[in-house]
């Protein structure tokens, strides 16, 4: 579980890092936790990363 979480965070960081430099440094950066409900899976929980420029 812990390795999976680290892997997921790494993927999220990579996605944001790849997207952000397109317009220079991001103006805003956010972190968070998300809880979701997918009809076929049930509840999900995990981290969230993002940037706004």
């Amino acid at each position: 579980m812990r390795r999976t979480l680290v892997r997921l965070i790494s993927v999220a960081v990579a996605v944001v890092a790849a997207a952000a430099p397109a317009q220079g440094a991001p103006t805003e950066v956010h972190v968070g936790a998300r809880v979701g409900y997918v009809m076929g899976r049930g509840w999900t929980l995990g981290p969230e990363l993002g940037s706004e420029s």
Partner: protein
Amino acid sequence: MDAGARARFGELIVTGHPFGQRQTSFVLGLTVAGDLSFGDNGQVAFRAHVGPELAAYHACPVLVVPVGGGLSLSFERGYAASVGGYVGLAALFAPLHPAPTYSDPAPAPTFLAGAATRAAFFPASFTQNELALAARLVYLPGSHGGLGYCGGD
């Protein structure tokens, strides 16, 4: 288990005072987001969301409300890719956004806190439909083109 990431590329489109004397700015941008979810059986699903977002920045107190929607794609091994749509809404709050001054050219950054929600619908695949709620902490540096300064100066 679930993980998500998003990025928005926006431009300031208008700044005015529609809600009293305090400045409100509107930023229109394109949002790209993705999330992975792992089922109990080890099956991995990936959803991608692309669409426009309009964000209102009001100060002060700082209230940021982004509203967006667009196209969603869902991929899962063993299933055909599903195409759908999403709507998203967030509300973020901070009491102050201090301005840089001569004596304090680098004031403390502003941290916004709030919640965001996104609903994704896939008409052809009911089991992919998702409702997500996120708690967000946003780092806002000392200078922000779309947000008026207030407090601390």
